[in-house]
């Protein structure tokens, strides 16, 4: 039996922190799964970089509007009360601090709250997209990622080795092993995933842990 959180459970643990009325931006990949989580009676508004405010579930096959996508390129639907703006106005919303939380994937997160998610080691160039704007300007940055790389190297680290996306902004990290809060010198264990022990987490983590 698999131990630790599934991808959807990682998203569920993050979505559980969303407060009523929040404006939420979900990055490509696992963060997208947050919109599957039932958080009723709370209600949040999903914002996408391309200017869609108030989108809903992915459209059912055959009913897609091919001119309506979220930041991940999925053909989504609009909920009642949705609005569309252009790209400059959409990033005005972001830089203006109206996004209550942005949830993103990352390669690495440091105990100081820096994170890296746009450029691989040794790469020329990368993919920034809206990540730097969101990271620098959203009220909160939550990260969802696997606890270690495919090669088994820790992703929760003392200092990021990869070029960072923003510094000192991460408030909470969900991994398959639990929930972690960067506190500057160490990560605090907010909760451990079912079947996961503290020692296993410490062994998979590249910096100090606090309970």
């Amino acid at each position: 039996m698999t131990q630790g959180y599934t991808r959807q459970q990682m998203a569920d643990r993050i979505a559980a922190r969303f407060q009523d009325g929040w404006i939420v931006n979900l990055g490509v990949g696992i963060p997208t799964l947050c919109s599957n989580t039932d958080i009723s009676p709370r209600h949040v508004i999903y914002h996408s970089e391309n200017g869609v405010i108030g989108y809903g579930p992915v459209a059912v096959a055959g009913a897609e509007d091919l001119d309506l996508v979220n930041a991940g390129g999925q053909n989504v639907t609009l909920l009642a009360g949705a609005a569309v703006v252009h790209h400059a106005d959409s990033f005005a919303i972001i830089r203006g601090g109206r996004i209550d939380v942005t949830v993103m994937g990352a390669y690495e997160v440091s105990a100081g709250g820096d994170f890296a998610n746009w450029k691989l080691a040794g790469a020329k160039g990368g993919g920034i997209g809206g990540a730097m704007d969101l990271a620098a300007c959203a009220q909160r940055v939550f990260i969802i990622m696997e606890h270690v790389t495919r090669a088994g190297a820790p992703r929760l680290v003392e200092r990021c080795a990869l070029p960072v996306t923003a510094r000192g902004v991460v408030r909470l990290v969900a991994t398959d092993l639990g929930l972690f809060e960067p506190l500057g010198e160490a990560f605090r264990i907010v909760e451990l995933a079912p079947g996961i022990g503290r020692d296993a987490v410490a062994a998979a983590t590249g910096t100090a842990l606090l309970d």
Partner: protein
Amino acid sequence: MTDKLCPDFAAAVADIPDGATIGFAGFGMPGTPFNLIAALAEHRARDLTLVANTTGGAQLPRMPDIGMLVERGKVRKVICAFTAATRASDVLPFTKYYETGEVAAELVPQGTLAERLRAAGAGIPAFYTPTGVGTELAEGRETRVIDGREYLLEYALKLDYAFLRARRADETGNLQFHRSQRNFNPVMATAARTALVEVEDPILPAGAMDPDAVHLPGIYIHRMVRVPPPPAGLWPQKRQERAPR
């Protein structure tokens, strides 16, 4: 008044010279001027600087995009928010040209890209932004502390031409976009000296569009071309989902 309607896409791009800076609307399929891009791919102009959100190539099925212009050797430089895919397993057509140095690139955060274009259109030569502070992008760049927070100085990004796609236009060039088709279209147009738009619906007579419902005033639009029905014209297609990793 000048007639803005062009007979075809080739005519719309015919005067674009070598060395021009061209901006492309589009975020994913919506709002991407596929037909104008296809015409530019057949046009002789070279040594172009292209401005867009991505370098293309990530879409399945593949549509005419910036990657195609790069592959044809028409491009000197690309200014965009993605020079590589964020998933290590994805490789964009653009990447190999960039890595070998055949094409230059300027990587810009998406919001900064939108704001630099907006600034160009709004007569703002430079502005400060919090985006990118403390990152590799800020190295060697001018910064300024305002009210205790550090900001990067960014400059307006002017275009010679903008390529747009809209759902509706009237004969004066007033445009309406459908849903997320809007994306970069307005800022690309305002940043450009000459804006070209491919239009999906029949061109409306002047006065048929509610002045309160215009998304981009016709004063920004110089040339319009109707998109023919498929298969002659290119339209957004359903994206095939990639296998989950």
